[in-house]
C-alpha cells in the first residue's frame, strides 16, 4: 500500500531539511539572526511538515486572513498565526540581505528566504485569535512579548535537533508517525493531546475515544490506535515536568493498562496559546498532518481560567465545513467517579449527578505534591511511582516545575555546533 502523505489543505507533507554540509556553501557569509525559543520550535515544526501547508513563517497577507477569516490567504483553514518576530534592526538587515541564517542559542538552525518584512499590530492578532487582550491570559502575553516587526518566508532546516533522553524515544516527525501507523496496521488513529500526568479520568477518556473511533471496524484484529500527543513547550512553575508527562503515559502501556498494539506516545514542540476553540482547530490541523484521523476534545480544551465556555472548543467544529478539515473531532464530556456506580464513569451515562466526584487535575496534583499515593481508582500505582522517580531523576526532587528546574533542567533538544 502506498504511503499517504496528504496533509492539511490536501497538500503533501514535505520535509524542508538538508544537512549542514549540503548547506555549507549557501550559508557562507549570510547575515545571522538569533531567534527566540518559540520561533526555533516553530521553525523545526515547519521544516518537518507539522504545519503543512506552511513552508515558512507567515507573510502579512496570511496573518490577516488567519485573523479575519480563520484561513490562510488561499482559503485553507488555519487558526493560529505562525510568525517570526525580530527586532527592527534585524528586520532591516534581513530585508537587505534577502536570505538569512536563523540561529538559536547561537547555533545555526535554518535558512530563511526573506519574502516579506512588515509591522503588525500584535494586540490585534491577540484579540482576533484569543478574543481578549487581557494580560491575565497567557496567550495574550505571548503576543504582547513579541517584537514589533516580522519576517515572512520559507525556511529550510540545516541542523536537526538532537533530543536528549527521555525525549529521544518519543520524537516522531509526521512522516515517521505515518510510517509507524502503517506498520502497526492502524486505519484510524485518535489523538489525545495532553500536558498532564494521566489519572484514570484521562485513561477512560482515551479508552472511550477508542471505542468511538473503532466503530464498525473489526475487533478481531484491532485497526485503531490512540496517539498520546504530549505538548512540550515552555513551562510555568507548578506544571508537571515534561519527563514525568511522557514517561507516565508510557507507563500506562508498559504496566498493561493499554495494549502496545493500540497505544503509542509521542510529543510535539508547541507553545500553547490557550486559545480555546481556535486552538482546538489548530490542534486538529496539527494532528491531521501527523496522520491522525480523529482528535479527541474534552472539557475546556486548550482553555484557560474562565476565558472560554468549557464546550466552546466543541462548538467551533459545528461552524467548520467538513471538507476544510480532514480529521474528525471526537467530542467527549467528563468522566467522573460515582460512589453509587462504584466506578469511574462517563457523565453521559451516570444519572447520580448529585453524588458525582469530579476529577480535578489540580486536586490530584495536590495529592502528589503532598506525596500521598492516590487510590488506584484515581491514579494507577505505577503512574504514581514513575512520577516520583521522575521527580528524583529529572525534577531536582519535585514532579512539578520549580524555579531550579526551569533554570537548570537539561534542554529538551540540542543543536550541534559546526
Amino acid at each position, binding site marked *: 500500500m502506498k504511503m499517504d502523505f496528504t496533509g492539511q489543505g490536501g497538500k503533501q507533507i514535505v520535509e524542508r531539511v538538508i544537512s549542514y554540509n549540503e548547506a555549507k556553501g549557501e550559508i557562507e557569509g549570510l547575515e545571522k539572526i538569533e531567534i527566540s525559543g518559540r520561533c526555533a520550535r516553530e521553525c523545526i515544526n515547519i521544516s518537518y511538515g507539522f504545519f503543512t501547508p506552511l513552508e515558512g513563517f507567515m507573510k502579512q497577507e496570511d496573518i490577516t486572513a488567519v485573523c479575519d477569516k480563520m484561513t490562510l490567504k488561499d482559503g485553507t483553514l488555519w487558526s493560529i498565526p505562525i510568525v517570526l518576530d525580530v527586532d527592527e534592526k534585524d528586520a532591516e538587515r534581513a530585508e537587505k540581505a534577502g536570505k538569512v541564517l536563523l540561529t538559536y542559542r547561537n547555533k545555526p538552525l535554518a535558512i530563511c528566504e526573506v519574502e516579506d518584512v512588515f509591522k503588525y499590530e500584535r494586540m490585534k492578532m491577540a484579540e482576533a485569535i484569543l478574543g481578549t487582550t487581557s494580560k491575565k491570559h497567557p496567550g495574550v502575553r505571548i503576543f504582547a512579548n513579541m517584537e514589533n516587526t516580522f519576517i515572512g518566508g520559507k525556511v529550510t532546516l540545516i541542523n536537526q535537533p538532537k533530543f536528549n533522553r527521555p525525549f529521544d524515544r518519543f520524537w516522531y516527525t509526521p512522516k515517521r508517525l505515518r510510517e509507524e501507523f502503517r506498520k502497526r496496521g492502524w486505519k484510524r488513529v485518535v489523538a489525545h493531546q495532553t500536558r498532564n500526568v494521566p489519572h484514570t479520568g484521562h485513561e477512560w477518556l482515551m479508552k472511550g475515544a477508542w471505542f468511538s473511533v473503532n466503530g464498525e471496524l473489526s475487533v478481531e484484529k484491532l485497526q485503531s490506535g490512540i496517539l498520546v500527543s504530549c505538548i512540550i513547550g515552555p513551562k510555568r512553575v507548578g506544571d508537571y515536568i515534561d519527563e514525568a508527562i511522557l514517561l507516565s503515559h508510557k507507563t500506562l502501556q508498559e504496566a498493561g493498562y493499554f495494549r502496545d498494539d493500540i497505544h503509542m506516545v509521542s510529543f510535539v514542540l508547541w507553545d500553547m496559546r490557550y486559545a480555546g476553540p481556535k486552538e482546538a482547530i489548530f490542534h486538529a490541523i496539527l494532528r491531521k498532518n501527523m496522520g491522525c484521523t480523529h482528535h479527541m476534545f474534552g472539557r475546556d480544551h486548550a482553555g484557560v481560567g474562565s476565558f472560554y465556555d468549557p464546550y466552546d472548543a466543541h462548538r467551533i467544529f459545528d461552524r467548520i465545513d467538513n471538507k476544510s478539515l480532514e480529521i474528525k473531532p471526537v467530542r467527549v464530556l467528563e468522566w467522573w467517579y460515582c460512589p453509587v456506580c462504584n466506578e469511574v464513569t462517563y457523565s453521559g451515562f451516570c444519572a447520580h449527578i448529585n453524588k458525582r466526584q469530579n476529577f480535578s487535575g489540580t486536586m490530584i496534583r*495536590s*495529592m502528589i505534591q503532598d506525596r500521598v499515593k492516590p*487510590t488506584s481508582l484515581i491514579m494507577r500505582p505505577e503512574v504514581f511511582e514513575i512520577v516520583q522517580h521522575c521527580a528524583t531523576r529529572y525534577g531536582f526532587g519535585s514532579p512539578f516545575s520549580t524555579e531550579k528546574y526551569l533554570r537548570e533542567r537539561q534542554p529538551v533538544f540540542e543543536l550541534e555546533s559546526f
Partner: protein
Amino acid sequence: MKKYPINIWINEERYKSLIEKGLEHLAKDVLAGMKVIQVFCTEEEKEKILKLFPTAKLDTSTTNSIELLPPEVKNKIFKLILKRKSLDVVGELLREIDR
C-alpha cells in the same frame, strides 16, 4: 464567610493520628476512596495565602479550593488541627507565619 477549602490528604499514618485524638470523623471521602480534611479560609485569608505562597493557586474550574501549597504548610495545618482539635486553624497558621 469561610468558603475556600484547603485539602489535607489523609494517608494511613495521619489517619492513625486522627483516631488517637478521636478526630477521625473530620476526614471524609472525596474522590474514589481518598480521604481529606478540609479547612476553610475567608476571602481575606485566601488572598493572604495566595500572596504568601506564589506557587499556590485557586482551583476556580471545579472545587474552588486552594491548591499546590507547599507540603510543609499542609503538615503545619495538620499539626494545628491535632493540637487544637479544631478545623478553625488558618488564622493561627497565618499569625505563626507572620511571626
